[in-house]
């Protein structure tokens, strides 16, 4: 039998029929899964637009009256008269006038008593350059406004972007921690495994609530903290999963085969085994993302949310109890709908991914 082949090899692209490819094809065929993927992708696109400032950059602008209702349901609001600063000021002036005091002075100090008197007077003169025209405020907005008259449309866009960012990066971090530790633990076993298992059981035994409060206390507030807190309290699930998987795979024949051809431990762990558990990781990732998006809502409610220059779905939801009590239902409804669609799509996508990537199901 001739063993040499003088013809140049035409090697087909290696990925032409990989499992990922197959998974993708299966996913394409799964109508619900593909639909969910489109929705998730759309959300991601919007989020990306919001991160990059293409969309909803001015979400903090107060473009409408406080609690301006949604345009279509303007009559379904509680119809409270909203107060404003000018009226409050006027009322106070009147009250003081009635009390017989003079209200003309800027501070109630004589010029002689104020070290800044001259500067204050001069500043009044120079203030003109800083006066800005207030844009007229809208009475209604398509999705209504929040307490400060911010457009809920913009806010929810920005909020979705933040929540997605938090969810995705939190999941990524948790998964990374869980995977690395789980891989080490499951692959090497022995003392290292004992040690990591010990850490794991300690972590799972301490109530989440406490870890959460503790971590939040050290690391200040903001997106970074939320992500870290969430990752630190939710890596355990991935750890367990990955440990079991690596334990299972390390004695599989293909890993032994890799050993036989002289592959190092690291290569076996991350080059050989990791791709084989990657479908689980993907599923775990999307599950974690969903969980963390919901978790963020609870964190925000407990006061561990993002900072005030940021907004997340959870932060919006945290405003819901007070608003609902006053009859302002639109923010809560918007957030609930936006979040449900996202989470539902994500969960359905997870289901489909699970099926599509499972090598057993063909």
């Amino acid at each position, binding site marked *: 039998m001739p063993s040499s082949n003088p013809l140049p090899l035409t090697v087909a692209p290696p990925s032409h029929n990989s499992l990922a490819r197959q998974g993708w094809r299966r996913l394409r065929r799964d109508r619900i899964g593909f639909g969910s993927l489109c929705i998730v992708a759309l959300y991601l696109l919007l989020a990306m637009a919001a991160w990059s400032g293409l969309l909803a950059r001015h979400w903090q602008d107060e473009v409408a009256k406080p609690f301006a209702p949604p345009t279509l349901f303007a009559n379904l609001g509680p119809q409270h008269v909203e107060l404003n600063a000018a009226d409050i000021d006027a009322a106070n002036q009147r009250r003081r006038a009635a009390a017989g005091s003079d209200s003309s002075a800027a501070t109630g100090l004589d010029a002689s008593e104020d070290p800044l008197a001259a500067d204050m007077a001069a500043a009044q003169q120079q203030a003109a350059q800083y006066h800005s025209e207030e844009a007229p405020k809208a009475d209604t907005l398509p999705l209504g406004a929040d307490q400060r008259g911010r457009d809920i449309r913009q806010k929810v866009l920005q909020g979705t972007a933040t929540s997605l960012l938090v969810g995705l990066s939190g999941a990524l971090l948790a998964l990374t921690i869980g995977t690395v530790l789980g891989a080490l633990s499951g692959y090497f076993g022995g003392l290292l495994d004992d040690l990591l298992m*010990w*850490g794991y*059981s*300690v*972590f*799972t*035994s*301490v*109530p*989440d*609530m*406490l*870890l959460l*409060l*503790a*971590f939040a*206390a*050290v690391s200040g507030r903001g997106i970074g903290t939320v992500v870290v807190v969430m990752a630190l309290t939710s890596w355990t*699930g991935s750890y367990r999963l990955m440990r079991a998987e690596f334990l299972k795979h390390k004695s599989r024949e293909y890993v032994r085969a890799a050993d036989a051809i002289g592959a190092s431990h690291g290569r076996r762990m991350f080059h050989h085994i990791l791709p084989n558990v990657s479908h689980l990781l993907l599923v775990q990732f999307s599950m974690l993302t*969903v969980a963390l998006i*919901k978790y963020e*809502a*609870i964190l925000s*409610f*407990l006061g561990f949310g993002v900072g005030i220059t940021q907004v997340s779905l*959870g932060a919006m*939801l*945290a405003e*819901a*109890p007070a608003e*609902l*009590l006053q009859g302002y239902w639109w923010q*809560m409804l918007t957030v*609930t709908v936006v*979040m*449900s*669609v*996202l*989470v*539902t799509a994500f*969960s*359905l996508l997870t289901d489909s991914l699970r099926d599509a990537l499972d090598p057993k199901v063909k």
Partner: protein
Amino acid sequence: MLAFIIRRVAQMVPTLFGVMLLLFVLFNWVGGDPSYILAGKNLSPEALANIRHQLGLDLSLPQQFVIFVKQVLTLDFGTSWSTQQPVTSILHSRIGPSLLLTGSILLLGTVLAVVIAALVAYLRGSLTDRLVTLISTCAMSVSGLVYIIAGQYWLAHKAGLFPIMGWSDRIAENLLYYLPLPLLLGVVVGLAPDIRFYRSCFVEEMNHDYVRTARAKGLSEPVIMLKHVLRNAMIPVVTSLMMSLPYLMMGAMLLETFFSIPGMGKEVVMAVDRSDFPVIKAITIYIALATMLFNLLADIVYKLIDPRVELS
């Protein structure tokens, strides 16, 4: 079996030690200084120093840790720093409501979820199945917070079906009067994901060969489902149940807050808020112990369900 239990209990010691270490580090690092709370309006350095002395906070860290170890060994955590109540009696009064609330949520939720999941798994592929799955998926995508807020607002206030909040000392009154709404909400929050998960467990079991064997014997579908599939599917169910126990605390905390239920979740938050270390210590240690015991229990339950499990 007994040897197994003894061994597992022995293994708890290092874990418990780890929990203590973690807790101790956490508290001393981020726990906040309780003396500032106890000092009230009087923040003079002498007053603060005095309080720290009274609490034993001026001892060295190793000394404090030794005291902690002693407390854990005797399970006597002294008195709360903020309320001066014996910690034991605080926990005593908190544990009942917590157990009643989370226990009933767990029980009802699990039973409902298993029954519904088994049903839809049996009907898999049908319209009912797809509908239930879709509804569960949508339902689980709504934040638990929304359920609680909206449930209290509409069901209790607007519809007047339940009391707004409250708790009594009589179990019967709680069960019949105060518990139903928080229970309902708690179950609703947890039900949807459970149904989805359990359904997939059932469906997976139903693809196994032994189901085919059962059919070949001529068994009817309900018998196959209830006798053969259910027991096998219970294994992941038990795992998820045991795994969900610690998480329940967080969920229950919101319920406790909104329905004024004097449970553990609220106590933790309050204790952390007040840097009340004895209470934090006690609760954490008890929860850690409970978690470990539940894990042990889970293993024993596995053994009962699945004879293949080796208790080792």
